[in-house]
């Protein structure tokens, strides 16, 4: 490549500036901002409503609450099972995240770097499971989990959520992309394969691991159908399932319902806002394109 990057940047900005600085460009930016505001409006409206009293939700339609109150939040924390649901969600999502990431890293490394009988069979099974709808297996998952007496337990909830072929595929491809010299050098120094994996390969991709962990956590926190089937009494529900349960119970008391909804989405929203770049990375990686 010729020329240093800085000069190329300036020439580009002069050549393209008429497109961004022109009246049409400003108009387009304005349009973008309006679209973004409209797109975000449902979330904004939910936040505002959650700060209104039951009375105010059906009487006020202003963009800001006249008398903001936390009564909806206090109500849903004190008068519903929300704290227990939170605990259930945390236990299952954290366990699923740790187990999925750990098992996928191990499996991805083995398939990528080691040669063992059954390796290709394993790889094809993973690719196959990536293509089939896991949702179609819910009835059988229910029968199997009921068969071992794990319905209505955390373990029963966690187990089927461990099927995550994409994470293995991403790890395998990542390990494939690393130069073979790393492994050879470590083996020459007398390291065992296990040491190579733990000391050389894993530390080299903390970025990928964090990205996959965050997206797995968000997915587990948000999953609905399976936790909804497994949790047979209210005390075993996750927050995601619980939110729709209070919706049925409270009817039109939308202030409370939405306060619960805000609390339910808080962990995933924060995870996204703090790790925006990692979430983007995880999504582009899982779709198989380089970001």
């Amino acid at each position, binding site marked *: 490549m010729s020329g240093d990057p800085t000069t190329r940047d300036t020439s*580009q900005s002069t*050549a393209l500036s*008429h497109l961004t600085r022109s009246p*049409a*460009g400003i108009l387009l930016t304005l*349009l*973008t901002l309006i679209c*973004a505001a409209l797109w975000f409006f*449902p*979330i904004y*409206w*939910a936040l505002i*409503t959650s700060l209104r009293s039951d009375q105010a939700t059906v009487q006020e339609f202003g963009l800001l609450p006249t008398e903001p109150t936390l009564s909806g939040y206090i109500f849903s924390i004190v008068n519903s099972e929300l704290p227990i649901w939170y605990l259930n969600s945390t236990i299952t999502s954290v366990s699923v995240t740790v187990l999925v990431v750990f*098992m996928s890293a*191990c*499996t991805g490394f*083995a398939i990528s770097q*080691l040669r*063992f009988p059954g*390796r290709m069979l*394993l790889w094809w*099974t993973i690719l196959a*499971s990536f*293509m*089939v*709808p*896991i*949702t*179609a*297996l*819910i*009835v*059988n998952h*229910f*029968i199997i989990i*009921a068969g071992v007496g794990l319905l209505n337990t955390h373990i029963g909830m966690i187990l089927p959520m461990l099927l995550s072929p994409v994470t293995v595929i991403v790890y395998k491809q990542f390990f494939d992309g690393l130069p073979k010299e790393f492994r050879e050098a470590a083996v020459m120094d007398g390291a*065992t*394969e*296990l040491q190579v994996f733990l000391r050389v390969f894993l530390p080299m991709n903390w970025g990928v691991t964090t990205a996959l962990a965050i997206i797995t956590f968000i997915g587990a*926190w*948000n999953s609905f*159908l399976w936790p909804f089937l497994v949790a047979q009494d209210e005390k075993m529900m996750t927050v*995601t399932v619980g*939110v*729709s349960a209070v*919706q*049925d119970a409270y009817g039109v008391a939308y202030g409370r*319902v939405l306060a619960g909804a805000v609390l339910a*989405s808080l962990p*995933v*929203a924060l995870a*996204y*806002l703090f790790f925006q770049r990692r*979430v*983007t990375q995880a*999504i582009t990686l899982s*779709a198989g*394109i*380089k*970001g």
Partner: protein
Amino acid sequence: MLRNRRSDLVVAYLLTAPFILIYAWLFVWPVIQMVMLTFTDAPLIGAGKSVGLANYTRMFKDPIFFKAIWNTSYFVLLTVIPGTAVALGIALMVSRLGGWLQSAVLAAFFLPYILPVTVVYVIWDWLTNVQFGMLQSVLEWVTGRPVNLWRAIPWFMPSVAVITIWWTNGFSILLFLAGLRNIPKDLYEAAALDGATRWQMFSRITWPLIWPITVLCLTIQLILQLKIFDQVYLFATGGRTQATMVLVQYIYEQAFQKNSSGYAATIALALFVIVVVFSVLQFQLLRIRGQK
């Protein structure tokens, strides 16, 4: 040397054992069990007796099964292409911006994607509430009277589709943005020097170069939306669910409400086959493109 090789094998099996156990138990076995169940009249819990192909003949004569196929296809039609087009539009708008403004605008468009489906449900249930919903004023302006979207059959699927696009579009937007970033800036620069218009730049540079990502988004969306359940189930609660039945919902209903997992497994197998056919088509499509 030989000892070393054997210890490598031990490590390989040690590393893959937990994964293989889980996969054998919760993927391979359920697939086999599902196929076996389709030949029985098993209830949800407990064994059934063999009924041959009765479940299949029943399925091909079942109007609700075809209703579910139709509704699922209708939903796919309403979400996949429109959703991908909207995502491309948004990505084009966002990619023009820079710095903190881009991050903020992208966050506004992406945030819905990370919300739990039940939260999406309560947010929109409130917005569309017949008495107090914010959107009813818009609807009233269009139709002249408030509409209960979730009880009026013609409104149901399009409304769920709009909400689904709002909810899941963040994924496609990110893929398009990554694709747009990979287009070399020099191309636009050269085009600008040649006096190309904005439309020419889009149709001659952006569109052909972004096409592979478009195909990727379309197929990912297609396979995702064929499995629609959560939103339809939540919004249809208390309504006439048969009219808005989708495939996964029918599996759920047969197994958990009608206690007939033999028939549920047959419908599940149908969904299974449909998705696998589309996945294989996608795979072939990508391979053909890769060979060119």
